[in-house]
């Protein structure tokens, strides 16, 4: 934490569950046996959800945000189209979330994950591990260097492919803000054929997960840039916590 802003202690805005995928999405077959069938019990935020752990920059290594090099042998680098992925972590009020832990993981440029259960025939890259992390600055800004992941087939329908994507895990300031999502790439036709993408009911919500090509932040002769903002839940002010007219 930078310590410049006083910590916020209000409860989070209610989650708009219609904006997210429902638990049961039969076209994504694994959800069928992994979706709760009973109604969720709604709770207004208690101290248990309003609070959350904070991660200091001391946990970060020098190459944690550089997937091209953080698993590579000395002097080597990962194979693939070099990209910068950057943006801001905001909350629903449009405020930058400072000190948010952003963790990412992805397949290599050929669409292959470094995982023992991965069965795709595409080759492993000996210089690519596939994980990275960073912490947002005082404005909520983050930045990674990586290679563009490839699309890959997966056993769901007879011929389903995942669009190229990067998994994002974001830790804001409260346990209720915890979020995992995926980033897709602008103009990828595979986005609109994917049963996992299609679990999200609203096209505008899906488009929120599509990173835009950002030529202004491209590094000439090195890496293209994609910009991707992430929005976490906002929270109420605590000024009038116990006064109904306050909020």
């Amino acid at each position, binding site marked *: 934490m930078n310590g410049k802003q006083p910590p916020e202690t209000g409860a989070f805005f209610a989650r708009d569950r219609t904006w997210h995928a429902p638990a049961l999405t039969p076209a994504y077959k694994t959800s069928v046996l992994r979706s709760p069938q009973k109604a969720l*019990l709604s709770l207004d935020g208690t101290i*248990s959800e309003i609070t959350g*752990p904070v991660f200091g920059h001391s946990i970060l290594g020098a190459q944690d945000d550089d997937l091209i090099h953080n698993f590579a042998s000395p002097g080597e680098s990962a194979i693939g189209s070099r990209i910068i992925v950057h943006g801001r972590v905001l909350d629903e009020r449009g405020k930058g979330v400072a000190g948010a832990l952003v963790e990412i993981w992805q397949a290599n440029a050929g669409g292959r994950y470094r995982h023992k259960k991965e069965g795709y025939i595409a080759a492993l890259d000996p210089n690519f591990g596939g994980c990275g992390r960073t912490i947002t600055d005082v404005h909520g800004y983050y930045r990674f260097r990586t290679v563009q992941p490839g699309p890959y087939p997966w056993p769901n329908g007879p011929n389903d492919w995942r669009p190229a994507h990067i998994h994002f895990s974001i830790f804001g300031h409260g346990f209720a803000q915890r979020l995992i999502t995926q980033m897709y790439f602008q103009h990828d036709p595979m986005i609109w054929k994917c049963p996992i993408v299609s679990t999200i009911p609203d096209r505008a919500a899906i488009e929120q997960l599509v990173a835009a090509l950002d030529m202004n932040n491209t590094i000439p002769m090195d890496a293209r840039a994609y910009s991707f903002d992430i929005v976490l839940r906002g929270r109420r002010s605590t000024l009038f916590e116990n006064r109904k007219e306050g909020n």
Partner: protein
Amino acid sequence: MAQSHVLKESPSQTAGPYVHIGLTPNFAEISGVYPHDLGATMITGDAAGEHINLCLRVLDGMDEPMRDALVEIWQADNAGVYNSPSETRGQADPHFTGWGRKAADPQSGEFHFATIKPGRAPHPDGRPMAPHISVWIVARGINIGLHTRVYFADEEQANTEDPVLARIEHRKRVQTLMAIRKGDTYSLDIHLQGKRETVFFDI
């Protein structure tokens, strides 16, 4: 100042089958990137309170343990205080992070956390909540992370007074949140579906 939603929350997507690459890479045999997996150690020194083991399993609709899931827990310290900047009631135990993250044991499907039995923290209405641990579950097939709580079956009086448990309409379902003690280990099976489906929260 009036507050409004000017932006929509980014929609959740499943953590997928390879969540361990990103969140517990050392467990996933991607070594050398991070010195250790975040959340692997909750007790960092001489933490006050009763040291316990929490053993969870997450079971799918066929009662099979989900070995590819990832669980995070978040809890108060022995005095009921959270180790968080948003905690306004005092300083938490400096030797206890309150936050843990684990992959399932590949054979048993069990999630093991070495932790502290939490103290009681107040509900917003002022009444004390019973000791509990917040749980967040992600996995392939789960489109949005599931929030639930672990309570302690041997805290009968506190559980009776707990304002959150009191909101569970079907009283039989209260048992789905109760970890059972054996020695210094509390165990609980979290059922995603079926007659024993765990109470999950929209928090």
